[in-house]
């Protein structure tokens, strides 16, 4: 009874939190903005994978390999490397659509506002926008700019300032100013911001946001302690049957994608990869193991030791989707939710996997994620291989992690299975 009270107390706290995080208009626009960019990001990722096909550099001559990479380069350079642009258009569009205004203007105004704040000179050559500013480096600035420009544009639209035309001027002409005035005012504000920042030691707003917000947040987010806390929080949400990953993603995606992009830049330059925790660390090594909580290992364990009809049926039901990292049948069917016995392996296994993965990458046993975005529905082993830039060690690490999860779950699943088995025999 005490236990139940505690559970309902926790849920009464978690449900509003999930509601607030998932239904907040800025976080919704942020998540949907990333969704807009995702197909392009994956397109670019596919060509990074193809351009770095394993062993190809040993089969063909260095010149031929360089030509091959150069030919495929624009695919990722035009999408993955400048993903910030697409995220900004997506956020501006979605937030403006949320306010019921002409969304495409929201998208292009956000983009223009961001470009106004972006450095437009590179090593004293004017008229050049460094692509690095459009990728990871500009991610946070882009997000803030998109929010602010959509809000300003909305504010100016709602003011309803128009240019009064004399009678006799066609209605369509005066209407054409209705979009012009809010956009002009919005973008003027951003130009003013740019000018003001040029007088500071930061020189650009990009540099300001990068130094004051982005760098501290990404350094914090790339650390093991923060990652373990996030993993635990995700598991707690799911334990109460709430989609933890989607709730957490809406807050952490900007950090994880930025870390991812930093690795991509280094990977393509053939330099040492700076980060271990990235979007793909989460998506491949944590989610990409049969779904959040690495439940594919649990399904394998059910096939290996399950005696009860209930678990065997569940294993058959959950396996086909589990291979593609969809695991709701297991979470709700085992059940994992609200199951006081299962909470132990449910919380423990992902932390063990996080720690093992982190240290095998830190020690150099397994290459770090190469910045390639692998769709989260890619089956385990394969997604570990792809995420680490076609490294077999990535797949092996996932297999090892799978075994670790099975060992942690084994005693608990055996007790659960025995309970079900005994009940089934009593009923028979």
């Amino acid at each position, binding site marked *: 009874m005490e236990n139940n009270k505690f559970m309902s107390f926790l849920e009464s706290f978690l449900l509003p939190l999930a509601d607030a995080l998932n239904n907040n208009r800025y976080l919704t626009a942020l998540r949907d903005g990333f969704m807009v960019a995702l197909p392009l990001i994956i397109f670019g990722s596919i060509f990074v994978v193809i351009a770095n096909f394993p062993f190809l550099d040993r089969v063909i001559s260095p010149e031929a390999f360089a030509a091959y990479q150069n030919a495929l380069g624009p695919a990722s350079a035009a999408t993955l490397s400048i993903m910030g642009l697409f995220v900004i258009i997506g956020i501006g569009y979605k937030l403006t659509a949320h306010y019921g205004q002409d969304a495409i203007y929201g998208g292009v105004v956000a983009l223009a506002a961001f470009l106004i704040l972006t450095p437009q000179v590179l090593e004293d050559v004017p008229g050049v926008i460094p692509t690095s500013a459009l990728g990871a480096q500009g991610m946070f600035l882009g997000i803030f700019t998109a929010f602010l420009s959509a809000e300003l544009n909305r504010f100016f639209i709602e003011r309803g300032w128009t240019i009064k035309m004399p009678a006799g001027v066609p209605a369509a002409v005066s209407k054409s100013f209705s979009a012009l005035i809010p956009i002009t005012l919005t973008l003027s504000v951003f130009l003013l911001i740019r000018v003001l920042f040029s007088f500071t030691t930061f020189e650009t707003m990009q540099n300001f946001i990068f130094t004051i917000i982005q760098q501290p947040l990404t350094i914090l987010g790339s650390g093991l302690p923060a990652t373990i806390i996030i993993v635990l929080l995700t598991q707690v949400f799911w334990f109460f049957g709430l989609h933890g990953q989607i709730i957490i993603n809406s807050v952490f995606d900007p950090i994880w994608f930025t870390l991812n992009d930093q690795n991509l830049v280094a990977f393509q330059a053939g330099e040492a990869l700076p980060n271990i925790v990235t979007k793909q660390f989460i998506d491949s090594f944590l989610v990409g193991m049969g779904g959040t909580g690495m439940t594919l290992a649990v399904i394998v364990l059910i096939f290996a030791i399950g005696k009860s009809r209930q678990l065997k049926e569940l294993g058959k*039901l959950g396996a086909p989707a589990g291979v593609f990292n969809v695991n*709701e049948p*297991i979470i*709700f069917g085992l059940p994992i939710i609200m199951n006081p016995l299962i909470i132990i392996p449910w919380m423990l296994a992902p932390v063990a996997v996080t720690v093992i993965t982190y240290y095998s990458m830190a020690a150099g046993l397994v290459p770090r994620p190469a910045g390639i975005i692998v769709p989260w529905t890619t089956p385990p082993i394969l997604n570990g291989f792809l995420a680490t830039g076609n490294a077999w060690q990535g797949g092996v690490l996932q297999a090892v992690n799978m075994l670790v999860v099975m060992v942690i779950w084994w005693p608990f699943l055996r007790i659960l299975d025995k309970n079900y088995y005994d009940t089934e025999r009593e009923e028979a």
Partner: protein
Amino acid sequence: MKNILLACSAGMSTSLLVTKMEEAAKSRGVDVTIWAVSQDKAPKDMEKADVLLIGPQMRFMKKKFAKVAEEVGIPLEVIDSMAYGRLDGEAVLNRAMELIETH
């Protein structure tokens, strides 16, 4: 002909249930169209639906969807988590038809 809409985070796990519900509908000769969408597509698709069922893991979306459902004039409910875990197409189909009829 009734239209049943299911929604979850990406429309993946609800689509598993759609297949099971379609099987149940076919064996009983009920004329229904059932489809699953991701949460961001749900409000738009609600216009074409007679009922909206939400995956239990996304139950925190109910408040937001309820507003749209009221505008469109359809009932909505969070799917029972036991039926969801068992992918019990028959039970969820029955509940959906009940919601449509009593609305």
